[in-house]
């Protein structure tokens, strides 16, 4: 991954990557079988939504929809409002900065503790090795739980303990991000030079010293690069957290939306797009150059931002550690356990789980198809002025779609459709299209072009050379990103469910409003099981094709 790039970074997050010999699990005809199964499930999902009794289309929403888009031309720009938005944006950024820093700190410690290098090193007696193996497994599994729960769910849980406190936003990011960062850091550490580490250990150096001398210097650029990538994600998450009630620009967005003040919404949308563009550009520049100056500059900037964020949020740590909070936490844990079934019993839970799976699959498929179609256009590969203008337009579209969080897309979809899984799936598709399209475009940009160039040099027409020399090498990466986004979309169904888009997300929101904490715990557990299921299927797809 020293070659940098977003594509290389997200690869660390894929489950079961690189394990085992390629071709070992390969099944002939698996590609067609998976594609067929996927299409069948797609067809079944969409037809079941359409066949559902009751109307699908929101007939009264159309004038609102038109009104919304005409407001784009005259966003609210009054000084008062802009000041409020600036303040809210600062709050959102503060969540992202502090949440990321905390997550990286957690990730560093937990990453070392969950690395195989840490646990499996040296020889030792057999029982000691067994203890080490068990230690590695326990810490790994311990991280799977916080990672499987979406930031928004963490925010909902934390809100009921801490109330409307700025720390909710910070912690809701820090907990799941800390877990994923730990997993990725463990992989980075394991991949960085095993040899030097072992040889230092052989000379009698302790585990910590050996790690510090032999592994850290090699792994540092990757670790830093991933931390900044997490920050990019944290900014998007912080907006969503605001929409769930943690304050910041997301919260303002919900207020303006529910008041149908579309001019205000557009101002917020433009701010989000601008924020997205700045953060993306910063991260991309960092990865491209990878120069020491740029990195240390960014580290300094991060430290400065952290101080600013602390001052801005002014978190009251005394409150967090107060007896009242402890009491509330104990109460919450008490109510969460044991998990309970929702009002409709198993039937409702299973039906909602199936709906969630359908939504995630439809969303990922739509996003994938649209992203692949756009990626070749969005990739920066020179060409004439027309080609370049089209490329810039495609990149703009991708930036726009990924800058608006899924709940915003869901609210927009609800202008056109009545609440249900369809608008939810469309919302997730729009958002993930923006993210996937950017990833795929980067794959295209980083592709080895020599095979393609050779085809051109032997007289192949442009389209044929493209179909043979560019599409097949890119296809494997595309599929693997599509599967990765499917898992993410699965977790994100929660945040579109909150605005009424169906599936387990809506169930969770209903339970929260009714203070049914046992039910919430049951729903969250179901979500974790679904995540594991999606993980299993996508690992199987990858393995049988590899």
């Amino acid at each position, binding site marked *: 991954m020293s070659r940098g790039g977003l594509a290389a970074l997200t690869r660390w997050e894929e489950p079961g990557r690189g394990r085992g010999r*390629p*071709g070992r699990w390969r099944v002939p005809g698996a590609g067609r079988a998976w594609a067929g199964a996927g299409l069948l499930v797609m067809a079944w999902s969409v037809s079941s939504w359409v066949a559902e009794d009751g109307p699908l289309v929101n007939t009264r929403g159309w004038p609102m929809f038109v009104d919304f888009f005409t407001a784009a031309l005259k966003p609210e720009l009054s000084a008062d409002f802009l000041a409020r938005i600036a303040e809210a944006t600062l709050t959102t950024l503060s969540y992202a900065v502090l949440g990321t820093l905390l997550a990286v700190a957690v990730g560093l410690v937990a990453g070392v503790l969950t690395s195989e290098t840490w646990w499996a090193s040296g020889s030792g007696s057999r029982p000691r090795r067994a203890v080490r193996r068990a230690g590695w497994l326990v810490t790994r599994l311990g991280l799977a739980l916080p990672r499987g729960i979406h930031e928004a769910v963490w925010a909902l849980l934390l809100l009921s303990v801490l109330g409307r406190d700025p720390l909710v936003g910070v912690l809701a990011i820090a907990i799941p991000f800390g877990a994923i960062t730990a997993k990725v850091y463990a992989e980075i550490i394991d991949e960085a030079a095993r040899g030097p580490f072992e040889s230092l250990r052989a000379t009698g150096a302790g585990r910590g010293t050996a790690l510090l001398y032999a592994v850290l210097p090699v792994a540092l650029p990757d670790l830093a690069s991933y931390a900044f990538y997490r920050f990019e994600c944290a900014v998007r998450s912080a907006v969503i957290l605001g929409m769930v009630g943690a304050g910041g620009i997301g919260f303002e967005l919900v207020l303006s939306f529910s008041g149908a003040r579309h001019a205000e919404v557009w101002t917020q949308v433009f701010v989000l797009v601008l924020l997205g563009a700045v953060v993306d550009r910063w991260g991309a520049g960092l990865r491209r150059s990878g120069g020491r100056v740029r990195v240390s500059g960014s580290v300094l900037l991060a430290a400065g931002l952290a101080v600013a964020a602390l001052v801005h949020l002014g978190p009251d740590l005394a409150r967090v550690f107060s007896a009242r909070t402890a009491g509330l936490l104990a109460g919450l844990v008490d109510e969460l356990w044991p998990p309970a079934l929702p009002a409709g019993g198993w039937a409702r839970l299973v039906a909602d789980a199936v709906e969630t799976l359908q939504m995630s699959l439809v969303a990922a498929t739509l996003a994938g198809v649209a992203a692949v179609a756009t990626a070749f256009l969005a990739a920066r590969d020179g060409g004439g002025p027309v080609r370049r203008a089209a490329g810039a337009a495609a990149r703009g579209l991708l930036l726009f779609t990924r800058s608006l969080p899924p709940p915003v897309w869901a609210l927009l979809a609800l202008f056109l459709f009545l609440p249900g899984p369809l608008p939810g799936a469309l919302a997730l598709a729009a958002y993930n299209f923006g993210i996937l399209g950017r990833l795929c475009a980067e794959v295209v940009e980083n592709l080895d072009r*020599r*095979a393609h*160039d*050779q*085809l*051109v*040099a*032997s*007289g*192949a*027409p442009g*389209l*044929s*050379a493209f*179909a*043979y*020399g560019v599409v*097949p*090498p890119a*296809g*494997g990466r595309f599929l693997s990103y599509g599967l990765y986004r499917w898992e993410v979309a699965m977790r994100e169904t929660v945040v579109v469910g909150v605005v009424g888009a169906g599936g387990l997300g809506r169930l969770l929101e209903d339970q929260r409003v009714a203070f049914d904490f046992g039910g919430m715990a049951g729903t969250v557990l179901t979500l974790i099981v679904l995540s594991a299921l999606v993980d299993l299927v996508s690992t199987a797809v990858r393995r049988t094709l590899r």
Partner: protein
Amino acid sequence: MAAVSLREVSVVYGDRRAVDGITLQVNPGERVALVGPSGAGKSTLLRLCNGTVVPSSGRLRVLGEDPARLPAGRLRALRRRIGAVHQQLHLIGPLRAVHNVNAGHLGRWGRWRALRSLVRPLQVGQAREALARVGIAGHLYSRTDRLSGGEQQRVALARVLVQDPDLVLADEPVSSLDPARADEVMRLLCGLMEETHRRRTLVVSLHDFDLAVRHCDRVVGLRHGRVVLDLPADEVDEQARERLYDLGPDR
């Protein structure tokens, strides 16, 4: 008409003359080896021949045409008649061998035919025959990146066979192979030049002087972008070799 003819051709990159006033004529059916130390201009010379590098000055004709002056359509028609084998092969890893061989048809096939063949391979018989001729008939449906280095080399050769060009350019085709295998691949490559009614022209750059002498009709030695040796293979002696590789002061 010569297959390739250069008159006083130079290629200048910045202030470096990669090819410095070369005059050279390659006759149809000839097998010419380009030898010389690294950076002598062998690759640039080959890239001049398929029109990916344009001369900075001088006159170039490839199969009777000037690649730099041709409109796009005629350039493609010319390139169809030029086959290429590279050190890095430039095969498409994730595709099956049959598609990589069929890529030799792309210059002739229309777009739709090319796309259709990706779904269900066309002209499989011809592809199988080509793979059989290079000795790996059994790998028709193997994924190319799962084949060994030597097998991939053969897939690249089979592609050239299917393309059926008049001129074959090979840039260090055997430099990643061990001596015994290199000899075998060179024999295969030269064998592919012999067709029933004609003989293809081969221009191949080689690191190994002995391979050049053993397999080619003519040896052209390059140094600093200039031709310093041009002899029929059977007239090359120890003295010529020393002159080419001599490490003393030059010019």
